[in-house]
Each structure stands twice: as structure tokens, then as C-alpha cells.
């Protein structure tokens, strides 16, 4: 067995640990791994290029930026904050809890790409969460503001990750099914999807509890 390609993994870990530029780390790891596996240098570059081109769909989501940027120009973030300030009972935690549920439910019916960090978190969810926190807490120090924004992003991730596998026609379910089929284990997508439900419920409970705890921490009087 040729163990040398494992050095590629070591490069990735070391590169991130040393905080080198990730674009360089990933490229160096890819080239090193290919070469150590005995591939011809030009073939390594071509394989890397083909894979990059095959994954262009990842770049599609950026087409929302011009719209989001234009709406920001006309005060969308300020508007989102104003709405939250006008709601008496809105809190950061309750607001994010609502978004968590929305994200899990829409993902579970196959609509995971209708929301996201660029589409919804930056223009709407994060400014609303901040406004709600300010209402409870007064002016936020930088550390608290960072914490609230980070939780808004985290809530999006948790919602989509632990919602989407309930939808049986999603990539990960297809991948599980295809992988197991190579061992002669034939499963229907629905058989797999139902087993995503317990974790989805627990994800809502665990992350939801953390969101409500965040509220409690924000409510503490400042000294």
C-alpha cells in the first residue's frame, strides 16, 4: 500500500493550523496528493481543473449579490432592524428560533436553496437579531454583536443540515443509497429519510435551547 498520498491531508491540516492562505493550502495539497499517488504533473493539473469546472454550480449562488447590495443601498438592513424594534415581544433567541424552524421545514420539503447566508442571513436575519439584542440590552459591545451575528449564521447551518435529509430526493440520500448499493444493500430513499427525523428533532431542541440561553445572557443587566 502506498501511504504517501496521506501527506496531502497533513498539508491541509498543517496549512490551516499555521493560518496560511487557504487557497494556497488547498492547491498545494491537491498537487502534492496527485504527485505522491504517482500521477503525471500535467495530469494532476488537468484533473484538478476538470473537477473545478464540474463544480461550477457552487458559484451560481453569488448571482443574488447585486440584488442584495442594491437593497442595502436603499436601507434594507435599517428597515429590518426598525421592524424588530417596533415589535414589543421580539427577542434575538425567539427570532432565531423561528428562523431555525423555517429553515428545517423548508429544507425538509426540498427547498434548501431558497434561503442562505447571502440571500437571507446578511440582509435580514442578522440585522433583525442585532436589533432585537439592542432592544433588550442597549448598545452592544463588539464581542456581543459578533456573538449574535455568529449565532445567526450558525442557526442557518444547523437548520439546513438537520432538515434537508428528511427530503428523500436530496444529494446526500442519493449518495448513501448509491454507496450501499455497491455492497448489494438495496434501500428505498424513503427508508433512509425517515431516520433523519430523530436527529432533526434533537437538533431543534439543542440549538433552540442554546438560542433561548443567548436571550437570557443578553437580558443580564450590564455593569
Amino acid at each position: 500500500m502506498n501511504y504517501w498520498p496521506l501527506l496531502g491531508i497533513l498539508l491541509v491540516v498543517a496549512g490551516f493550523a499555521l493560518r496560511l492562505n487557504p487557497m494556497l493550502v488547498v492547491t498545494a495539497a491537491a498537487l502534492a496528493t496527485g504527485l505522491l499517488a504517482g500521477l503525471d504533473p500535467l495530469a494532476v493539473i488537468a484533473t484538478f481543473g476538470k473537477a473545478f469546472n464540474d463544480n461550477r454550480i457552487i458559484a451560481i449562488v453569488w448571482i443574488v449579490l447585486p440584488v442584495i447590495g442594491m437593497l442595502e443601498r436603499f436601507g434594507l438592513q435599517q428597515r429590518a432592524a426598525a421592524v424588530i424594534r417596533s415589535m414589543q415581544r421580539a427577542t434575538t433567541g425567539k427570532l432565531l428560533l423561528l428562523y431555525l424552524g423555517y429553515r428545517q421545514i423548508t429544507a425538509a420539503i426540498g427547498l434548501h436553496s431558497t434561503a442562505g447566508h447571502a440571500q437571507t442571513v446578511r440582509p435580514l436575519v442578522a440585522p433583525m437579531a442585532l436589533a432585537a439584542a439592542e432592544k433588550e440590552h442597549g448598545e452592544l459591545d463588539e464581542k456581543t454583536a459578533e456573538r449574535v451575528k455568529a449565532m445567526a449564521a450558525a442557526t442557518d447551518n444547523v437548520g439546513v443540515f438537520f432538515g434537508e435529509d428528511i427530503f428523500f430526493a436530496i444529494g446526500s440520500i442519493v449518495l448513501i443509497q448509491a454507496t450501499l448499493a455497491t455492497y448489494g444493500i438495496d434501500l428505498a430513499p424513503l427508508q433512509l429519510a425517515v431516520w433523519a427525523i430523530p436527529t432533526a428533532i434533537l437538533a431543534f431542541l439543542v440549538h433552540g435551547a442554546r438560542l433561548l440561553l443567548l436571550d437570557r445572557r443578553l437580558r443580564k443587566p450590564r455593569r
Partner: protein
Amino acid sequence: MITLHWLYVLAGAMFAGFAILSAADRSNGKRWGNAAFWGLMALSLLAGDLIGDLGNGLLVLGLAALAGFGLVGRGNPPTTSIEERDAWSAKLGNRLFLPALIIPVTALFGTLLYTYTPLGASGLFEAKRETYILLGLGVLLALLTIFVWLRPPLLTPLQEGRRLIDSIGWAAVLPQMLAALGVLFAAAGVGDIIGGLTRAVIPEGSIFLTAAVFGVGMALFTMIMGNAFAAFPVMAAAVGVPLLIQDYGGDPAVIGAVGMLAGFCGTLMTPMAANFNLVPAALLELKDQYGVIKAQVATALPLLVFNILIISVAAFR
């Protein structure tokens, strides 16, 4: 039929616009680096299928060099001040949400309508790509609405888009690079090697310990690869199928489905999952680029434990 290719052209044209406006932005000391970087992205989207595998490879090396050697900076596109934004917000009121909702509503109801009515049989959209195509349609509708309603200068969408893409920078391209890295790892046989090594360290006879190695292995390997999809075939080959399913007779549906979810717990804890963890940190202008990961660890770890428990209990009921 409207295919993904139309979207590549739309996105490619947008990046080309970013490149041209970057080149013209004298306030940015690194304007040529920015122009080259977004220009290469435009080339990839517009002509990726024409320039051959090696051509694409050289293009990626160019992107990595520009980003890696600090040649990409941040432009200063014209935009409104905070005071102007407050004034617009007060003037436009909640109507400002309507154009913002056009994109998600078009994608959401469009997909539902297309999937659950005879429209789906029309073959208007490329199969399984409906949501993406409707997302693009939503973007165009929203742009049109804003132009008709607020009449901004013609270049506004490109300048405002450039403002946001510059705040994300090279992180916008990293996820695609990581997907390509995963392909190279697979081509080099990294998966088989890891699988062999994992099997060598597993204690024999304990269902719970084996399930724990499977779950933790999924999470760890996902953290290294940035993607649970890359980890699953490896851990299934190493532990899931030969030990949990074949030796101990576990339910493959539970082991497969929950194993993947254990991997997702790893995704929450790694900078390698750049599009979920680093990109939002950049988008939200966090000081700490690992801030999102730190906010997720306390959710991910209990869920990982829970997933391992489900596997060791529900798969062997």
C-alpha cells in the same frame, strides 16, 4: 429547455462586470489583481467547457496564485452612507421588503408549482435544477422591480454586487476548490488508505465502540475534507458495511442515514467547510473568521453523541 448553462452565462457576465469595474476603480491599490481574479472566474463560468481540462487547471492555479500571494484587495464602489440609508428606510417603509422577498418566493413557490403541477411535465427547466433556475429568474425579476420602482443609476447592481463580493474575496471561490481537492483525494486513493487504517484500530466485539468509531470517524474525516459526502464512502467501506452491517447485523438504513448526519456534525466544526463557516463570517464582517465555527461547536458535539447513540441502539433493536 432552460438549463444550468443559462445560469453560468448570467453569473459569468456578472463576474465579467465585476472585473471591468474593478480595473476602473483607482481607489483600490490592488485593482489589477481584483480585475484578474474576477476575470478568471468569468472565464471559468463562460468558457469552462471550451478551454479543456488543462486549461481549467491553469485557470485554477492562476486564481490560487492571485489570492495566495495577496494580490486581491477590496475596492470602494460608490454606495450610500448610513445616514442616506436611514432616510431611505424611513421613506420607503416596509415596502422595501417586497423586492427582497421576490427571490425566495420565486424559488419557493416556483419549485412547488413546477414540481406538483403538470408544468413539471413541460420540460421547460433542466431536471433537478429547477430551484437554481428559478433562483436566477427571481434575481432578474427583483432587479427589474427595483429599477422600475427606485430608478437607480444603470451600473448600480454591478457596483453593489462588487461591494459584497469584495467583502467576501477569495473565500467565494474556496468551496469550489475544496470540491476539486476531494476529487483528487479520491483519485489518489486516500479513501482506501484511511479505511484500512481505521479498521486496524477498532476494538473487536463491542457494538457501541464500533458505532462510536464510525460516528467519530465520519465527523473527523468530514472535518479534514470539509464535506460529509467525501467521508461517507470511506467510512462505509472501512467500518459501516463490513463491521456494523455484515458482522453485527445492524440495520443499514439507520447506519447509512445517521452516519451521514454524524458527518454533518463535523461540517459544523471545520474551516474546510468554507461556504458554511468562513463565507458567512466574511459576509457578516466578523472580526474572528472562526466565529461561526465557535458558535456551532456546542450544538455539534451533543448531536454527534446523540447520533452515535441512535446508531448503537436503533440499528440493533
